[in-house]
């Protein structure tokens, strides 16, 4: 582990100033950053510990029904905040399907947005990786291909963003509040993470020194609370990143779908909003056929970046299933196995 400067700013302004220096990195829960340091995968020269910025630790109800979540709110605290979970149940379910209880207790909202990919070549210091070491190449190309992107990838990088939390957030039009050297700005979450293009080393639109201060959900997002689910396929029952995942939220009236929100996880370098699929559903009656059509629309542009194309079909199926679950109604409480295909299935949703 190399030597670095450790600073603990008392205000957002100090944090931004400290974070703008070359080689600086913000430290929140550390559940991702410290692993990267120990693996010699990142060598920041200054750690700016933002965990003492109390003003970033609040969950605020906004007039009109939205919510503003401070960047330092712990994943577990947010998921267990009852008013939040009842307004945004798919977000709570996604949070609780991520990592383990211990990791969730430490991990923060901002850190979850900005966690790095789980591409195994990214974590192998000796592998070529454009995202970690720009210009070195991409050893994931030609690999086993089980975690690769199927949407929005480039020749330079085929990695996916691993967050569960971001998937329902992007479906529900979350906005990221940012403080930076040039002042404050806001970016819709959908535009926050970058597709790799030819600069995969930049995960997000954040400029040096820019700090995520909060994530906001608009009042309209709560209108989906009665029909909102997150579903995640994993290689073990819990404590695993998504093979593919989907958030589905419906606004239903008189048995029909008025509006739909759909996003996918584990398929691209960003949480993937599937607007074309939403359009298929608006005004439709909920049934397996229309869910399948929506799923096909969601993956219409998908193409495998490696040898394994099964994940495209799995992604379609998880979208269709998430829609069926959402249509069946949000359960009264988050299931004991959140987002799991093994959670209780209302009605006949499994046959989709």
């Amino acid at each position, binding site marked *: 582990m190399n030597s670095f400067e450790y600073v603990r700013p008392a205000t957002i302004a100090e944090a931004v100033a400290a974070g703008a220096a070359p080689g600086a990195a913000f430290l929140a829960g550390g559940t991702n950053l410290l692993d990267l340091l120990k693996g010699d995968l990142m060598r920041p020269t200054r750690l700016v510990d933002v965990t003492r910025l109390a003003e970033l630790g609040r969950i605020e109800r906004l007039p009109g029904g939205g919510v503003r979540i401070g960047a330092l709110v712990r994943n577990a605290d947010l998921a267990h905040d009852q008013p939040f979970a009842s307004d945004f149940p798919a977000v709570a379910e996604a949070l609780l399907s991520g990592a383990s209880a211990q990791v969730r207790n430490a991990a923060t909202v901002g850190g979850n947005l900005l966690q790095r990919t789980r591409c195994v070549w990214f974590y192998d*210091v*000796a592998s070529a990786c454009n995202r970690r070491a720009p210009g070195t190449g991409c050893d994931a190309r030609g*690999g086993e291909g*089980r975690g690769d992107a199927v949407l929005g990838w480039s020749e330079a990088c085929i990695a996916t963003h691993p967050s569960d939390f971001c998937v329902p957030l992007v479906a529900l039009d979350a906005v990221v509040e940012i403080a930076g050297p040039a002042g404050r700005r806001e970016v819709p979450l959908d535009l926050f993470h970058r597709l790799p293009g030819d600069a995969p080393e930049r995960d997000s639109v954040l400029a040096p020194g820019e700090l995520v201060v909060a994530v906001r959900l608009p009042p309209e997002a709560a209108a989906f609370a009665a029909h909102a689910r997150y579903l995640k396929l994993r290689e*073990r029952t*819990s404590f695993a990143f998504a093979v593919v995942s989907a958030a589905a939220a419906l606004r239903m009236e008189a048995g029909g779908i008025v509006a739909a929100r759909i996003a996918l996880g584990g398929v691209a370098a960003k949480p993937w909003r599937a607007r074309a699929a939403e359009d298929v559903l608006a005004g439709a009656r909920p049934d397996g056929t229309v869910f399948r059509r929506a799923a096909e629309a969601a993956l219409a542009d998908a193409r495998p970046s490696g040898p394994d194309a*099964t*994940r495209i079909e799995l992604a379609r199926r*998880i979208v269709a299933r998430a829609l069926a679950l959402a249509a069946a109604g949000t359960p009264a409480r988050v299931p004991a196995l959140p987002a799991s295909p*093994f959670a209780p299935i209302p009605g006949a949703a499994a046959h989709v």
Partner: protein
Amino acid sequence: MSEIALTQAPAHARHGSNIGQPLTRRDGVLKVTGAARYAADNHPPGMLHAVLAISRIARGRVAFLDVAAAGAHPGVVAVMTPANAPKLAVDPEVKTHPFVFRIDVLQNDRVRYAHQPIAVVIAETLEAATEGAALLAPRYETEPAQTGLDGDDGFVPPVLGAGQPAVLRHGDVAAGLAAAARRIEATYATPAQYHNAMEPHAIVAAWDGGRLLIDTPSQGLVLARARIAELFGLEPGHVLIRSPFLGGGFGSKGLLTGPQVLGIMAARLVGRPVKLVLRREQMFGPVGHRAPTRQTLRLGTDADGRLTALDHHTRTATSRFDDFIEPCGGVSHTLYAAAAIATTHEAVRRDTGTPNFMRAPGEASGSAALESAIDEMADACGMDPLAFRLHNYAEVEPVSGKPFSSKALRACYAEGAARFGWARRPRAPRQMRDAGGRLVGWGVGTATFPALMFQAEARAVLRRDGTAIMESGAHDMGQGAWTALAQIAADALGLEIGQVEFRAGASDLPDAGIAGGSAHTATAGIAIHGAGADAIARLAALAVGDERSPLFGAGNAGVVARGGRLHRSDDAARSESYADILARAGLAEIQGQGRSAADPAAQTRYAMHAHGAVFAEVTVDPALGQMRVTRLLGAFAAGRLINPRLVRSQYYGGMIWGVSFALHERAVMDPRTGRPMNPNFAAYHVPVNADIPAIDAILVEEHDPHVNALGIKGVGEIGITGTAAAIANAIWHATGVRPRRFPVMPHEVVALMA
């Protein structure tokens, strides 16, 4: 003399004899309070920290290390490379003993596998040593590396794992297959797995002139001491290894590994005590693994569903520079009464570390394949898989014709099936669904493991205050040796367990053999039993020969030791306390010695194995392929159980590993570089609690008068065997598709069902 001893009484009271009681772990309080001292918890004064630098290539040589940069880092004391590494007294490439493996300890710049140690940085702090190791920035001359089993190479090894023959033929398999009314042939693949004990390999080494004090986890203290003495040119008696607690071993701590030797070399180089602890990633290379296999099973039956032939061929891999061949065929020698049986093995050499004994080596992988194939054969015969197994039940060991010393497998099948509800199982697949519409299947697998026995010694001391000491250099890897062996000691000495100070876990105690092969309780236990009996016999001789004793003249009738007193066998009212006997004889203590070894006569006459039956229920999401073992039940017969609580926990642990084998665990090697790509617990999956919803183990009664004096068979490994296949068979029963590659993964099940 070692200072490691436990006198703590277990939390639960006992009733009657100690053997057979479900006592809780005597070391439990020490462990849950953090007071149990593991190797890396030792910090002798002046200790430095050593960190390995490991190779990022799998084959070639190290062309350059920036020793100057590492050495200049503040806090770094020394950088050990082949240029300055202490020379060893014997070449570590020379096999001085069949159980000596070639290790990489900086004797040259050659690289033979990824994650091989290529330097050691020694510093005042762990952080400085870690950074020093990073600053070495090695450059390599890389040669193309090969991993995996593909290729047209292969050789027939002279022997397998622990010396078993690579080829064994009983009867004419070709004729048996030709004559068969029904045949199946299938190939099953199992991946490389790494032991990954919770506690990584660690060593704290302190030299004191020509003496060496070592704290390191070991499953074989005396072998390790001999190897260290040999490598460093020392008297074995000048090396003391302490290993009171292991955070798991699973075979990877059985024989001394390269990194442990490097820790000792580092301490010699700097002349101060040194601690070296492996990082998780460093466990994927120099400390052994379970080799991948590809096993082809060809089975045939006559029209009645009786096996006419069983052909089990294994292709596996060893390293480029040493031999450990996974002995998969062993399970096919004993389980089914096939008229003809052949087991053959071929191996390839690959650029990996040398594989090693890993919990149920051979049996785990071998039974995953055999028990899957048996299921396929049963289906081909249109028979229930349990009925098929009973139909082909081996009354004598098929390949040797020997009777079994005991074999309660029928009872295992019956008790397991009854509790599981097997009779309600529809024969055809894809018949059962749960309330959510998910597919449900039931599968069975037979478990088996040989009942082995090594050699050991023990020493007992009865003291005038009525207490005793029992000494055995036994190893507690978490299985509960501190408790189970003390139970045997207490009974052998006729004392309460709290009156016996049990000493174990150090190399200056009597040799307790290796804690492997599921043989430790039998091996160490029988020596302990013997030592206790010897001490009691000497005490009895004092009493019955002394006319002042109430036991005078009881020589023919004999005496029984119970509750700290000797009683006449024919008149329990006549007794005398140990303390009184010793006091009258003017003795402070009396000693006894015990030894254990397998009985060659019994071994010639009998086949000795533990058995079991594992039943699994698996639920499968038909669209997404996600699988979950929703019920798991094993029924095992393993002779006499010293402590049923600990035994059950061994079965649970083994069965959970079976779940891991079936659904989760695999090392992903990058075929282009030979590097393991998932060397951490985020990516190398083992089951979590949510993967183990309901697990049960039935302890089937079995009395074995032949296997050894206490009738003990092993329980440490058998739980894995049978389980992986039971799960795969349940997946078939749920889905109608047959997974033949372990671990079975969701995307693969979906692809098979497409």
